[in-house]
């Protein structure tokens, strides 16, 4: 489509801005000087605009994903009085450089990928982006070699400085309407259009810093260098301050927490920026940290830019703005330097693929952040630290989950935590979860009583493909709380209606100690079912505990599996347990002759948003909350972070 190009005098453009300011319909934001640097800030007068700036400290993402954003308000006195708080202030942002426009388009891809983020969408729809072609190049920017110094799309209007006038390229109807309504323009002549091209060609020549690796090659170079000692050597200098992710226009991970008023009457759920360079980013309620080493976090940031997002969406998630290079005190954050250096190495051993495409049926409906109201029907202490809850959705609809899926449970004022559903899929409005007291949300939950209200989001993630298990022997292997989602699957399989569809069933279950065995009554039932072998073990047993069963790790149970009835090729093994368990169990299974593709695992990570946006649960390029938690071992094992 040919874009209309108008010409406006600089004086008329400033008048346009001042008219918009007086009009007060819009929050008018523009680039202003702050000391020697520049920022996007609310304008008071058009004269404040510094459109010849080089780069701003923060990108304009702060207007679409604010640093501190209220998602909803709730009342602690009236359970489940929850109101979402979408910001609908119309806004005009003046002076966005092409690389930032491209970064916004990338953020669109992530946030509008189903299920879309309504808060982001609303802001995006309510904002008019007036871009400006770059006049002064930031010393650290390498946008020229990234081809992100110019853009043809993504703006409503785009200004090009032609001396006494601006050429205004009209990108959208919205932009065109604004221009017609508030400004006097004339059509650009062909000479003026030629001048725009000259200006842009000229910008490209101004870049001193250049990335030598073509964007399409970032992914393969990174794949080849995953195990390179480069990451460790470089990360020794990392301050772990996450400045690089804060200033990055393509970093969009977030955290969510609840705040309450001092009188404890009401509260708000807040979304803030989070950064993968911070150690707490992957920390579970139980204290476990994935990517514990600085080198793992440091590496993650570059792989996300150059491999994970390119594999997922087809773009390199770096636009060459150079902000991270300016912000990083030890100067190790600049992707241009890193890619150029990696390219100079000989290709080391190919360490595999870090992304797997998995089908998800994430439905595009409703507001993704707002939980549904639900009521606790039953709370039963099952061990010293575990309580089983039966929860009913207040709309009386069944949860509609598959075994292996999870829900996010909200306790307002305390926060939200993920729980695997432990009941089989049935058509009643209630379902069960097992809560182990580890963090703030779980500690509060275990003190709650029938009749108390909670919020539910879900079912989330990919569950087990039960159809694929039909006609097979199934070996269930669970350790610790891995039994929670496993119980949902086992009870589905052993249900009288379904039992005939499956062949030999073996259940192996290991707990830390006898008192931590979950679902003992279920276990007793399973033992009674014909053609089901059920074996238990505990890691250790104190003298005062009653236990006459096996003592040892879960792997001690494998020799007990009745191999005579066992056709390893026709057996599916389902493994769910703590992260440390997988390596050993899978080793046993391989010696038993189980093909890799017959092993199904469910993995635990920090599931926060549950919809593949916030970034916390990532295993390399995969969002566990969305593409998992259930994976085929053969596929997921190519991801180095899966079983590290």
């Amino acid at each position, binding site marked *: 489509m040919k874009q209309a190009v108008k010409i406006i005098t600089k004086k008329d453009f400033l008048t346009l801005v001042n008219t918009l300011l007086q009009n007060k319909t819009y929050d008018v934001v523009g680039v202003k000087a*702050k*000391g*020697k*640097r520049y*920022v996007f800030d609310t304008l008071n007068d058009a004269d404040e605009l510094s459109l010849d700036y080089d780069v701003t*400290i*923060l990108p304009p993402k702060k207007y679409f994903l604010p*640093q501190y954003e209220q998602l909803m308000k709730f009342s602690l006195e009236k359970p489940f009085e929850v109101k979402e708080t979408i910001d609908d202030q119309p806004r005009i942002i003046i002076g966005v450089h092409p690389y930032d426009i491209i970064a916004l388009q990338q953020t669109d891809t992530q946030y509008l990928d189903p299920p879309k983020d309504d808060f982001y969408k609303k802001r995006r729809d309510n904002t008019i982006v007036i871009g400006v072609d770059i006049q002064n190049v930031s010393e650290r920017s390498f946008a020229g070699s990234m081809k992100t110094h110019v853009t043809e799309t993504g703006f409503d209007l785009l200004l090009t400085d032609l001396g006494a006038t601006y050429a205004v390229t009209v990108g959208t109807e919205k932009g065109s309407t604004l221009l017609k309504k508030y400004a006097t323009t004339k059509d650009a002549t062909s000479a003026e259009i030629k001048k725009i091209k000259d200006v842009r060609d000229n910008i490209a020549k101004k870049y001193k810093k250049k990335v030598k690796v073509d964007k399409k090659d970032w992914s393969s170079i990174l794949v080849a260098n995953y195990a390179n000692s480069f990451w460790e050597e470089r990360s*020794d*200098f*990392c*301050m*772990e*301050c*996450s*400045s690089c992710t*804060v*200033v990055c226009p393509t970093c969009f991970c977030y955290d969510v*927490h609840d*705040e*309450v*008023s*001092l*009188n*404890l009457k009401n509260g708000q759920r807040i979304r803030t*920026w989070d*950064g993968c360079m*911070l*150690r*707490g980013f992957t920390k579970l309620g139980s204290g476990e940290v994935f990517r514990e080493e600085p080198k793992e976090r440091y590496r993650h940031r570059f792989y996300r830019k150059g491999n994970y997002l390119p594999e997922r969406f087809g773009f390199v998630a770096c636009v060459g703005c150079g902000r991270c290079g*300016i*912000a990083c*005190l*030890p*100067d190790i954050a600049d992707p241009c330097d890193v890619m150029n250096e990696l390219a100079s190495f000989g290709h080391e051993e190919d360490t595999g693929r870090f992304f797997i495409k998995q089908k998800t049926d994430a439905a595009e409906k409703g507001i993704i952040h707002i939980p549904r109201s639900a009521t606790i029907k039953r709370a039963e202490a099952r061990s010293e630290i575990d309580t089983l809850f039966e929860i009913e959705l207040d709309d009386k609809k069944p949860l509609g989950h598959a075994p292996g899926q999870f829900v996010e449970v909200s306790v307002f*004022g*305390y926060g939200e935590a993920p729980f695997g559903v432990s009941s089989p899929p049935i058509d009643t409005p209630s379902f069960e979860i097992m809560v182990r007291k580890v*963090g*703030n949300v779980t*500690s*509060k939950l275990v*003190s709650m009583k029938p009749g108390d209200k909670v919020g539910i989001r879900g079912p989330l993630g990919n569950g087990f493909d039960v159809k694929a298990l039909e006609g097979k022997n199934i070996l269930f292997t669970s350790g610790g709380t891995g039994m929670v989602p496993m119980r949902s699957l086992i009870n589905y399989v052993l249900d009288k209606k379904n039992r005939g569809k499956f062949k030999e069933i073996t259940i192996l279950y290991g707990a830390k100690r006898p008192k931590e065995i979950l679902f003992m009554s279920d276990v007793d039932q399973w033992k009674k079912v014909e053609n089901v072998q059920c074996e238990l073990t505990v890691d250790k047993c104190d003298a005062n505990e009653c236990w006459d069963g096996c003592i040892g790790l879960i792997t001690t149970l494998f020799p007990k599996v009745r191999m005579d009835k066992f056709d390893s090729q026709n057996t599916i093994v389902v493994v769910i347990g703590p992260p440390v368990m997988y390596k050993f169990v899978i080793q046993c299974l391989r010696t038993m002759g189980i093909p890799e593709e017959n092993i199904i695992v469910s993995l635990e990570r920090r599931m926060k948003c549950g919809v593949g946006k916030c970034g916390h649960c990532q295993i390399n390029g995969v969002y566990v909350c969305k593409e998992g938690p259930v994976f085929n071992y053969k596929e997921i094992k190519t991801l180095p972070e899966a079983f590290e």
Partner: protein
Amino acid sequence: MKQKLRVAVFDFADCEGCELEIANLEEEILDLIEIVDIVSFREVMKEHSDTYDIAIVEGSIMRPMDERRLRSIRSKAKILVALGACATIGGVNKIRNQWMPDEVLHEVYGNADVKGNELFDVFKTKALKEVVPVDYYIHGCPIDRDEFKHVITALALGKKPEIPTYPVCVECKKNENICQFELGKFCLGPITRAGCKAICPTHNSPCEGCRGLIKKAEADCVKEVLERYKLSYEDIRRRCTMYNYGREECSVDE
């Protein structure tokens, strides 16, 4: 509504500025006493009770008599919260740990006869946790009122208060400040615990580290940065003296 928590506020060697920050909640004090009973708070009230659930303790420990009093407070409190840098890390009171207690006494009181007077029987300054177990920390010099509210509401709800484990840079960058290093100044922000909303660099004053260091000043990355900005190790050591003198460990979990 369940029984309100009983809260007592105590102080040791300090300027009482952090207690003042609580008093400065002004009308919000009314909300505060809705959710907790303040049973002792010398700076703002004359009543006192020795029965309390939470002790909020300001100040550093300087003398054997302070130790005894702190132990007694600890024994009565279910939860002990350290309030402000003097209590959490020793803060400015630790500057004097560069010298022996006798030298300090002589410097301040000259030849006055203080021997045998237990008020003057000082040892090297200690933070609270060097004497008794501390459950939670409200860092800063002074504390941030919002963080105080966060901690007190969390305790009233039975939650574990969460405080940042990352450096001031995160908040400073979010505030869109020009980096102090870029301005040619030397800032402790990269190695100091956040939670202050980067108030100092936001007002163009480098971070002094009042919320405690979360990374050692000797770390390779710090050396690299010092070199890059032509600063000496002596500079960082001097800067750390203000609030972090003699601090060996840099725990992020406290």
